């Protein structure tokens, strides 16, 4: 093997604290090294040209570059090798910037360490072999999980681009949290008026298959070839027959079902369509509330239904779908305010959450758009809004800012004044965080034009007294305690990860953070990708987001899918595990430890053997260290290669 070594100065980044010339000189004495030099910027155009020239001039067939992290430029140099006609896996990188020059100032020690790292790289390269990527076909269908505004946007963008889309929604209608809102900030336009047409587009789009009342049961396969199992939950109504006429709702005698669409403000019938603009507009029976399903008698809806669509015997059903990419848009849940005992935690009827208040404001809500206190139906005059309930509070494990609460509180204060002109709103806040376009102007309008009184400070306690509430808090600008008599208290609850987010992440094999939000591939540069190829993120499943940000991310995820599907075939990474059949004893330990399910047990001449599904393998190497026989090896990181590095470092 003829190895060439290039030691990069990286301007003064490396050369400032490493004697690169001396490292190159030392490299010339390593076995198989035919050429070694130092170079100003190895990654630059002339730097790469120098590498190609040296390859041709000295007949090099392996290259070591000692420079920055492989994360930054490994791909760059591999392409350089390809252009010079050498297999790109005959390349090694020694990280003498992050691992050497940036962490120490002692030039002598640094030079020694850099030399050691180069020696290790050379030793490994001598054991490298050519690797070749395979190709595989991709299935150009996409699954979008979650039918909120981000999922709707992603689904429509993909479908408009000609892709077949499967939209899976857990509730009986799409629309998500946005469909529950009365108005949106900062334009105060009607939420369902702008979302409604998009929902209809989803229903009517020929490229979109909508599975409502469905959840992802399992996901197998890999980018381009995912096998998805979807659980269609029993609705007890034949949706093909149901026309959404609503006659069943009028006659249902069980009227105490939890009204999830109205966030528990009021109740609904056991068989119901959540709201008039629901998509799909189909009835669903709540099995906990239905008299027929709980007690075995009634059946009023079945008798009345003009299309005989009621199916009390219906059960959950599993359907299989094949897709090439997945967009997770599962959204968020609202913080459970009952954790704040001092705010009345579900004990006081007139202490409600912001989304419940949103339902009270909505013309299609339980009060027809009239603000009424839940306890006695009276119109409140003094309304206190408390911000940061479940945001920026480490004591309830929500140290992060939910981002949109400042804005929706301002919106609700404005709407309150519109609904009840002689009302007075008070807003307890910590800071106003309104950085979006026209956002700050909006919060100022709430204060200046609509007279909402903003008080900077937290509320210590809410106490009922003679039919109203005394809200006690601090005004940290005035430096005084304040007590406000409130007829209604609205808690601006923050966002938390959707229920079951962690379980879904595990099915999708993507990472999630300590709070359950899905992790993006890179916080700056890969905001909608995940670390699992072919799985993308949109909306609040990745962190709290307002509507514009969710929509933008939905479109971004869709464009990523389009880019992925612009190729007909994808190249597989050859840095995966391989099994030496003659050494494998078929113990199956690798199969059980593989976190990606990439190892299958097969039979070879009547004996059980492990076999790697190369397209699923992520190259983590867990199987290689598990195998008692050393039969399974991670290509490009074999035992021999790693031992050669160790021996180069510790020769005695």
């Amino acid at each position, binding site marked *: 093997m003829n190895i060439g070594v290039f030691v990069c100065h990286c301007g003064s980044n490396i050369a400032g604290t490493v004697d690169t010339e001396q490292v190159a000189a030392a490299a010339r004495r390593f076995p198989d090294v035919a050429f070694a030099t130092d170079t100003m910027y190895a990654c630059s155009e002339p730097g790469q040209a120098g590498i190609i020239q040296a390859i041709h001039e000295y007949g090099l067939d392996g290259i070591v570059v000692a420079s920055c992290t492989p994360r930054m430029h490994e791909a760059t140099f591999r392409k350089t090798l390809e252009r010079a006609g050498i297999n790109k896996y005959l390349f090694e990188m020694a990280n003498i910037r992050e691992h050497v020059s940036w962490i120490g100032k002692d030039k002598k020690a640094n030079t020694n360490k850099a030399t050691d790292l180069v020696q290790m790289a050379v030793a490994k390269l001598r054991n490298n072999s050519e690797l070749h990527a395979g190709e595989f076909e991709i299935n150009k269908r996409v699954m979008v999980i979650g039918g909120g505004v981000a999922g709707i946007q992603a689904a429509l963008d993909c479908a408009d681009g000609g892709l077949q889309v499967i939209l899976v929604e857990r509730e009986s209608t799409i629309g998500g949290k946005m469909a529950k809102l009365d108005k949106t900030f900062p334009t105060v336009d009607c939420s369902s008026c702008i979302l409604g047409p998009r929902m209809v587009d989803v229903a009517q789009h020929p490229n979109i298959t909508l599975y409502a009342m469905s959840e992802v049961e399992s996901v197998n396969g890999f980018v381009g070839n995912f096998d998805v199992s979807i659980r269609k939950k029993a609705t007890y109504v034949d949706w093909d027959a149901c026309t959404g006429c609503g006659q069943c709702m009028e006659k249902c005698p069980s009227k105490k079902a939890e009204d999830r669409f109205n966030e528990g403000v009021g109740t609904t019938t056991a068989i119901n369509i959540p709201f008039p603009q629901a998509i799909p507009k189909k009835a669903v029976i709540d099995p906990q509330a239905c008299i027929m399903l709980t007690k075995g008698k009634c059946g009023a809806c079945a008798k009345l239904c003009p299309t005989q669509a009621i199916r009390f015997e219906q059960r959950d059903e599993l359907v299989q779908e094949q897709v090439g990419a997945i967009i997770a848009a599962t959204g968020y849940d609202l913080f459970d305010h009952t954790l*704040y*005992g001092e705010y009345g935690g579900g*004990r006081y009827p007139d202490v409600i959450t912001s989304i419940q208040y949103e339902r009270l404001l909505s013309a299609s809500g339980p009060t027809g758009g009239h603000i009424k206190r839940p306890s006695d139906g009276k119109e409140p005059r003094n309304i206190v809004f408390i911000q940061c309930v479940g945001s920026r509070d480490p004591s309830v494990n929500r140290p992060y800012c939910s981002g949109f609460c400042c804005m929706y509180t301002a919106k609700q204060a404005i709407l309150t004044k519109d609904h009840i002109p002689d009302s007075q709103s008070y807003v307890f806040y910590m800071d106003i965080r309104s950085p979006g376009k026209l956002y700050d102007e909006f919060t100022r309008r709430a204060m200046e034009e609509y007279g909402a009184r903003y008080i900077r400070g937290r509320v210590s*306690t809410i*106490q*009922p*007294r*003679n039919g109203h509430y005394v809200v006690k808090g601090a005004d940290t600008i005035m430096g005084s305690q304040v007590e406000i008599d409130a007829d209604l208290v609205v808690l601006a609850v923050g966002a938390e990860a959707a229920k079951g987010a962690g379980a879904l992440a595990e099915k999708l094999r993507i990472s999630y953070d300590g709070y359950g939000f899905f992790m993006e591939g890179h916080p700056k540069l890969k905001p909608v990708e995940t670390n699992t190829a072919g799985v993308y993120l949109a909306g609040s499943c990745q962190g709290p987001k307002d509507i514009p940000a969710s929509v933008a991310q939905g479109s971004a995820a869709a464009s990523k899918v389009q880019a992925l599907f612009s190729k007909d075939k994808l190249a597989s990474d050859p840095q995966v595990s391989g099994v030496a059949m003659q050494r494998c004893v078929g113990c199956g330990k690798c199969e059980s430890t593989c976190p990606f399910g990439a190892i299958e047990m097969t039979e070879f001449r009547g004996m059980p053997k492990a076999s790697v599904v190369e397209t699923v393998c992520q190259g983590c190497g867990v199987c290689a260290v598990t195998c008692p026989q050393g039969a399974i090896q991670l290509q490009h990181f074999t035992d021999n290669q790693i031992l050669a590095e160790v021996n180069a470092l510790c020769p005695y």
Partner: protein
Amino acid sequence: MLQYAYYPGCSGLSSSIEYDVSTRALCKSLGVELVDIPDWNCCGSTPAHASDHLLSASLVARNLAIAESMGVAGIITPCPSCLKNLKTTSLRMQRKSFHEKVESIVERPVRADLPIRSVLQTVLEQCEPEAIAKHVSKPLKGLKVVPYYGCIMNRPPDVMTFDDPENPTSLDRLMSALGAEVLPFPHKVDCCGASLGLIRRELVTRLSGRILDTAAALGADAIVTACPMCQMNLDMRQGQINRANGTRHSMPVFYYTQLAGLALGQSESCLCMDKLCVSPSRALSQMGTPAQEERAR
């Protein structure tokens, strides 16, 4: 049966002797065995920890050391103030340098690892309210009470680690189990003015007055407390409070142990009901009778 080192606290031998007596009686009937810490000393209560943490910890550490030598399952005390000092010291002594200083002052080894609990927590953890209900021979039927925990029975939550710091429910559950009607009380954990009774009396009359006002407005027959300081402020100072605020409250303020004893069939005299300043006789006479009559005062 588990044995506990019992730390009655100074007030248990003086101003709240009825709390101490009824606590012992309650524990006995529920099978919680108490062994007094021999030669215990004052924990320093409010003055010590306000002036010097080391002094406060050393006062407590001597008691801890004696209790440790007793071979018991833990230390229990009825007084939240003593409890807070015991627990805080035990936590502070996890810091090695502090631990060494304290040991050099008390001149004996202190492990500071014995579990420390309030009697209330021990009773509720050892016997579920449903189990306690089985012991009840004379339920508190017809008695409307508001539970008043005071500010330090559950706080700070990191130190006390018992019940919800903002909306505790242990006394509520216990009283319900004994048959009393428990009213939702918004001032459960508000401060009564505590130890500022001598130096800033107007503060006590205002804070304690509000507690009495709300209890009366809710239609309560009595307030139930678990803290000698709260009980003293609300009961003994009720006349002062009435004079300062122009009110005419006559609201008995019981220790929860007294009401529990009553429900478990102990006599009023052995529960020291006569030690209460505001006479409880009218409230106690409500029991067992349907509470339909208007008591508009």
